[in-house]
């Protein structure tokens, strides 16, 4: 029983309600309160990242001990993979909240913004920490409902339309997930992930298993915007206020989409080759189609949103390669490498994509447009934005020594070692197209000459925004250290161990 685990959910929830109540009396308090709450969460999550290591700690909510090794309460689980995702959520959440102090001033009803922001963080923390299928669904609903509202925060035509699309597709996904949970309960009569694994290990019907897997994959795939299900993502991510775009793109699609898919397919279902090939194909398709859709975009945030699809494709493809290898039961070392590449890229993507969205927000804040054709020459007037966006652009396109390079390198090496040459070549080509696309962004936004009217000329954005961007760019540089031996063993390896060993998760949970 690790007493820190429930704090991840309780602190932001209590914070959200405190903001609603106190914000009524002290109108200036809410923004600092939100940042403070998230700062506390950052401290706790880094503390747990250092302390967890290879251990798996458990929290039985309500103190219900298992009877005959069958869990009857809800379990919260924290292991190596969880803490990494928790760190991403809370660090990016803190920086976005701090950035919002300046950015969200232009909107009305700041109270609602910060309260919904805290609820979204609470929901994501709950999803990541949960060890129970239905609990995942409940917390997923908290985070996506607050995301629906935050996408529509500007209440103009575009925002509302994006929010409607997101709600319809999100609702569809929720019912698919709920149906999948019902199916699993029908067969296993239990909801605990570890216990379900236990029940499935004593035999199952193949057709049923495939059907459930497809329901779950399409449900969470819709939330993660993998390619046939991507229709909502570009609209939602480009219409939301920029700190929210950073949260959606940097964290939400990972925490409620990719993370859950990886967790369930590695730790709850048995790996099967057909399903692994399907997942790899979907990942590859996302990677390629996403980048081609991104080329023609002139709206910065839409461009970034399509790149999100493409970069998540890298993650899914790489993890999928690992799944194929594991399901064949040979060459575990390469599988470990592929999964490591995927998770490493997931972390990196969170850092640089949120940084890019914050940059886009800063540009929009200053000159009031998102169209690349209408901007230019910002490098002189906005040095901090320009420098940080350069770091992020180079990271996402995989230029050394930034973090994106190392993760893409690991993914490509793993693909070559696993003899998936086509996928490796595709990964390289997509990376080159990404580079071209971001060079375009850099050139049009920061280096072209353009005359602005003298009195409304662009200036550097206020301090909170600059602070968040600089911290994130430093994080981008520091994350490349994760690739090196010594540090990798300390942080990445525990996460991969949980995934690669098929029975470790369930036996260590049921054993406690």
């Amino acid at each position, binding site marked *: 029983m690790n007493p820190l685990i*429930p704090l991840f959910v309780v602190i932001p*929830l209590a914070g959200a*309600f405190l903001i*609603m*109540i106190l914000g009524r009396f002290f109108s200036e308090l809410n923004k600092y309160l939100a940042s403070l709450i998230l700062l506390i969460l950052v401290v706790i999550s880094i503390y747990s990242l250092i302390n967890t290591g290879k251990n798996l700690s458990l929290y039985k909510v*309500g*103190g219900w001990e298992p009877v005959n090794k069958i869990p009857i309460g809800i379990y919260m689980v924290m292991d190596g993979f969880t803490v990494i995702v928790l760190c991403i959520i809370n660090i990016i959440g803190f920086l976005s909240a701090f950035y919002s102090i300046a950015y969200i001033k232009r909107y009305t009803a700041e*109270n609602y913004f910060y309260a919904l922001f805290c609820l979204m963080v609470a929901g994501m923390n709950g999803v990541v920490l949960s060890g129970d299928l239905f609990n995942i669904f409940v917390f997923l609903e908290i985070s996506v409902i607050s995301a629906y509202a935050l996408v529509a925060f500007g209440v103009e035509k575009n925002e509302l339309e994006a929010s409607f699309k997101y709600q319809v597709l999100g609702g569809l996904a929720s019912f698919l997930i709920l149906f999948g949970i019902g199916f699993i309960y029908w067969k296993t009569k239990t909801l605990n992930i570890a216990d379900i694994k236990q029940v499935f290990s004593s035999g199952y019907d193949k057709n049923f298993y495939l059907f459930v897997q497809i329901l779950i994959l399409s449900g969470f795939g819709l939330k993660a915007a993998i390619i046939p299900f991507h229709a909502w993502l570009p609209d939602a991510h480009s219409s939301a206020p920029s700190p929210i775009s950073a949260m959606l793109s940097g964290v939400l699609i990972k925490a409620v989409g990719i993370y859950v898919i990886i967790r369930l397919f590695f730790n709850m279902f048995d790996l099967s080759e057909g399903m692994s090939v399907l997942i790899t194909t979907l990942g590859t398709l996302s990677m390629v189609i996403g980048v081609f859709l991104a080329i023609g975009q002139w709206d910065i945030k839409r461009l970034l949103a399509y790149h999100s699809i493409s970069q998540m494709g890298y993650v899914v493809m790489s993890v999928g390669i690992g799944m194929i290898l594991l399901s064949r039961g040979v060459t575990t070392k390469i599988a470990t490498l592929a999964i490591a590449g995927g998770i490493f890229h997931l972390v990196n993507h969170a850092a640089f994509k949120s940084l890019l969205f914050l940059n886009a927000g800063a540009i929009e804040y200053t000159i009031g447009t998102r169209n690349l054709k209408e901007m230019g020459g910002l490098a002189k007037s906005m040095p901090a934005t320009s420098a940080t966006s350069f770091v992020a652009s180079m990271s996402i396109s995989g230029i050394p020594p930034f973090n994106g390079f190392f993760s893409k390198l690991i993914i490509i090496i793993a693909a070559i070692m696993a003899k998936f040459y086509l996928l490796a070549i595709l990964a390289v080509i997509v990376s080159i197209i990404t580079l071209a696309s971001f060079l375009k962004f850099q050139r049009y936004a920061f280096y072209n000459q353009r005359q602005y009217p003298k009195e409304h000329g662009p200036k550097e954005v206020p301090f909170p925004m600059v602070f968040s961007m600089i911290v994130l760019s430093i994080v981008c540089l520091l994350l490349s250290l994760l690739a090196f031996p010594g540090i990798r063993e300390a942080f990445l390896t525990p996460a991969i161990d949980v995934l690669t060993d098929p029975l470790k998760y369930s036996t260590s949970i049921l054993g406690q």
Partner: protein
Amino acid sequence: MKGMTLIVKKTTQLIAGMIFMYGIYVIVHGHLTPGGGFAGGVIIAGSLILVTLAYGSDFLKLIKEEAGTTMIESLATIMVILIAVSGFVFGTKIFFNNFLPKGIVGHLISAGVLPLYNIFVGTEVAASIFIIFLSLIIFKEESTQ
């Protein structure tokens, strides 16, 4: 929004109070009979909505206040969390622990903290649903002006 006819208003006067009481009954007996915090809360919200529909929103003189409306349900939810955390603090250091004595099955005052959860969840649900309804009406009035 205008109210309805006199007959409807009089009937509502008679019925709404009873529906409200029935909601409270369902909440309080949640651990003994079917129903509970959710059902009772929605019933209470239903009685309030009935009054609003019958008398019209002109009668209530609604003004939208920026952050005031969510006060009650924020407070109620924070009470739920507080009870959960109080299990954490006073009980056996466990989140969501039912730390009060259980009493005798079938009595009104039994089952530890469950009736308290029922009451606060009921309050929260009633407040939330009524606010959703009111905000739709207020939006309608504001946007037609």
